[in-house]
């Protein structure tokens, strides 16, 4: 043997850091979750402060749960397992540290800016542009560190967990960059370059695949490493795990058939997209079964080991959520589930069951190893956490499934005379308040379990040795030389002379190429990148760039400068967290809200505000529905006009003055994005002042207070404009030939 044996050490310090951060931010994310759950059941918990309303805290909860809790857990998992699977210390300790502290700084800045109402309002991508840039930089540092480690590895075969990590790093980078293309209009404000339908399309391409590549693939990598370790046996079928990987990478990107239905794709391609979506059931369940069968013959261990208990329940929830996902993408199911709590229940069975429990299993397995104590501080506490968490999840999701289906059915119910059975939206809210209380209980249990875990790990840490033992590992280096095993001669060729072309065919047929490919990290990475990027582009191009897909409506005009400012208030307050702006073409919706929404109505909406959950009613046709005074009273105290409303009051809008100085730059950015602003390009501020004065007079005429230059005026200007353009006559002389009726939608 000529290969040299090398000695090295693993860096577990970085793992200890990420585990600590996981527990800290997990507790914060879940605490905020419990608070906002309480706010829905008990609106006074909004505290009457601008910073603590549901609309501002809900993005804080989702971002903390995904990027702080799950994010740090992923990094802990990757830093511990990659070094061991690749038999190499991380590429560069400074990069590891920069990654850790950079990520924590991003989390802190998110926790500060979101309650201040600094947001892009695009779900799970709310953070404003300076933080987006920081995320990109830190992610690149992480990628360099990770691929550098692969480059100096001492294990030739790249284990499947590493494949899942590679897919995560590459895809998250692509998603983050393409979903965050904006033009800044100040340090804390930017406008998406995409508008309306295209913005929605881009955002949910991101949202859909963020679930796939931030909450699924890295946790599968985690599963394929930590489950065999904890069970002390190899995964049931390694080949199934490879199939699992490629089917996720190839199929997930195509899995949203709704992304294809409205494109110029022909029927057969659309159908194939749906087939892919249903096909996703198979690898997902294959993965779940692969995980569970790893424990065959070891079920007695599961009864004794809390780590395995967490893994078994976590993997089972993976199976449940991946069964439910495709189910929810079936149109007839979606028509009932969309905008209801069904989605919330689905998300939480995934987040609490799959992401949470896999994280806890990993942390309990890691703690005695990274803190070098023989045992976890208390196995009993871990058992208690397991039961608290499991029962907490069940309370949470059962109640919220019931709430979702109940509300969905109430929205679409008609009485015998053919009218809406529950015309008053708030009736459908009060009906599910008891279930909201059950959720608070379930969430509290899960949160309590989180605290028990933090305590248990803290006590384990306290028992650590004075100095950590850092054992020296030895492994043979990988030679530079690729050798015969890298360019293997086909078996067929050995049998006798072959023509070069026949040789090539035999080479291909025996699939030696794939074997080489599996070992070549960079080729492998390039292929993952290509498959993800190309699939995304093919999917996006038809709906995204081709003009004919968004029919234009002649009467739809840009927002007036004051309305634009009001819209920014709507965005900052996170109104989209509870109100959709998308009336679907169902009779139950047009009866309740008015004319259904047309794609051409949103062409100036940078960003779109369609929302994903109706905790309150849809607002797309709110314009002109009520008087100014109704809005004044409603915003000041919602219960004054809607008895039993759970909306928080917005008193600060009556104190804060309109910042006229920012309006012109914002209009200019909009104009830069192609919004035809005309004269407002030079006189946005004057126009805004005029409109504000007009609305002020109208409110006084309706017997209201004098609200000169208050934010509420701008918000009312926006709300009164919403969804009204389609009923107006198109402006004269714009050369348009379309008819001025409400149905003037051209294709």
């Amino acid at each position, binding site marked *: 043997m000529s290969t040299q044996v*090398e000695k090295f050490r693993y860096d577990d310090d970085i793992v200890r850091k990420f585990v600590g951060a996981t527990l800290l931010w997990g507790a914060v994310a879940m605490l905020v979750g419990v608070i906002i759950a309480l706010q829905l059941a008990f609106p006074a918990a909004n505290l009457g402060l601008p910073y603590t309303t549901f609309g501002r805290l809900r993005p804080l909860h989702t971002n903390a749960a995904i990027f702080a809790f799950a994010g740090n857990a992923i990094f802990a998992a990757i830093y511990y397992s990659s070094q061991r699977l690749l038999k190499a210390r991380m590429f560069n300790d400074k990069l590891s540290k920069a990654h850790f502290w950079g990520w924590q700084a991003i989390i802190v800045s998110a926790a500060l800016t979101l309650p201040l109402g600094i947001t892009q309002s695009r779900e799970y991508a709310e953070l404003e542009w300076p933080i987006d840039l920081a995320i990109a930089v830190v992610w690149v540092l992480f990628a360099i560190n990770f691929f550098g480690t692969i480059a100096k590895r001492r294990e030739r075969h790249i284990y499947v967990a590493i494949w899942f990590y590679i897919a995560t790093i590459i895809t998250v980078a692509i998603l983050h960059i393409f979903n965050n293309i904006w033009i800044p209009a100040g340090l804390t404000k930017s406008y998406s370059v995409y508008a309306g339908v295209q913005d929605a399309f881009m955002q949910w391409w991101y949202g859909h695949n963020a679930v796939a590549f931030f909450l699924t693939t890295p946790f599968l990598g985690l599963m394929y490493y930590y489950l065999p370790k904890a069970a002390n046996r190899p995964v049931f079928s390694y080949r199934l795990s490879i199939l699992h990987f*490629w089917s996720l990478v190839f199929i997930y990107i195509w899995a949203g058939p709704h992304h294809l239905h409205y494109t110029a794709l022909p029927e057969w391609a659309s159908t194939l997209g749906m087939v892919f979506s249903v096909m996703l059931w198979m690898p997902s369940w294959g993965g779940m079964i692969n995980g569970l069968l790893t424990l065959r013959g070891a079920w007695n261990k599961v009864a004794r080991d809390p780590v395995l208990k967490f893994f078994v329940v976590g993997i089972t929830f993976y199976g449940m959520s991946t069964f439910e996902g495709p189910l929810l993408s079936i149109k007839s199911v979606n028509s009932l589930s969309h905008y209801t709590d069904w989605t919330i229940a689905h998300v939480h069975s995934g987040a609490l069951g799959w992401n949470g429990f896999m994280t806890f299993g990993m942390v309990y397995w890691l703690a005695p190893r990274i803190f070098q104590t023989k045992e976890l501080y208390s196995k009993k506490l871990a058992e208690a956490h397991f039961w608290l968490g499991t029962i907490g999840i069940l309370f949470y999701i059962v109640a919220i499934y019931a709430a979702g289906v109940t509300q969905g059915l109430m929205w679409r119910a008609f009485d015998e005379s053919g009218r809406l059975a529950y015309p008053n939206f708030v009736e459908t809210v009060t009906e599910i308040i008891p279930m909201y209380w059950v959720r608070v209980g379930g969430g509290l249990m899960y949160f309590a379990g989180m605290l028990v875990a933090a305590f248990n790990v803290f006590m384990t840490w306290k028992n650590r040795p004075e100095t950590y033992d850092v054992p020296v590992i030895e492994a043979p280096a990988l030679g530079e030389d690729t050798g015969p095993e890298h360019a293997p001669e086909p078996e067929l060729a050995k049998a006798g002379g072959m023509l070069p072309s026949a040789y090539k065919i035999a080479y291909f047929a025996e699939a030696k190429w794939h074997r080489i490919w599996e070992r070549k990290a960079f080729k492998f990475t390039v292929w993952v990148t290509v*498959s993800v990027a190309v699939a995304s582009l*093919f999917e996006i191009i038809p709906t995204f760039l081709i003009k004919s897909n968004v029919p234009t409506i002649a009467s739809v005009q840009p927002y007036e400068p004051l309305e634009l400012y009001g819209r920014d208030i709507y965005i900052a307050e996170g109104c989209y967290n509870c109100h959709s702006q998308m009336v679907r073409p169902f009779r139950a919706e047009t009866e309740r809200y008015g004319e259904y929404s047309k794609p051409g109505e949103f062409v100036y909406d940078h960003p779109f505000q369609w929302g994903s959950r109706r905790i309150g009613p849809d607002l797309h046709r709110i314009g002109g529905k009520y008087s100014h005074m109704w809005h004044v009273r409603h915003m000041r105290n919602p219960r004054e006009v809607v008895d039993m409303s759970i909306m928080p009051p917005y008193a600060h809008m009556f104190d804060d003055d309109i910042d006229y100085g920012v309006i012109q730059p914002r209009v200019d950015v909009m104009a830069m994005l192609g919004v035809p602003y005309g004269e407002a390009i030079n006189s946005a501020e004057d126009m805004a002042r005029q409109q504000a004065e007009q609305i002020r007079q109208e409110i006084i005429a309706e017997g209201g207070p004098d609200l000169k230059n208050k934010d509420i005026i701008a918000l009312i200007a926006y709300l009164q404009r919403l969804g009204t353009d389609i009923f107006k006559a198109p402006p004269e002389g714009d050369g348009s030939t379309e008819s001025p009726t409400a149905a003037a939608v051209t294709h």
Partner: protein
Amino acid sequence: MGLSGIMGKAGLEVYAEVGLVIFLIVFAAVVWNTFRKSRKGEMEEAGRIPLDDFVPVHDRTGTSSDDDEVTS
């Protein structure tokens, strides 16, 4: 004409269909290659990698090694 106008006239729709077909073929090739009988042993060996990841020097040799020799 803006970017969307140019893209709209470029006739890119067909790329999506071709892409879909290529993906299906590559995917089928990967599945076939992974599940060939001749690769069973190699695959089982690869599946054991996580269990073989921690081999401290002193456990292997019975003596503790010299720290100075450590390369990272």
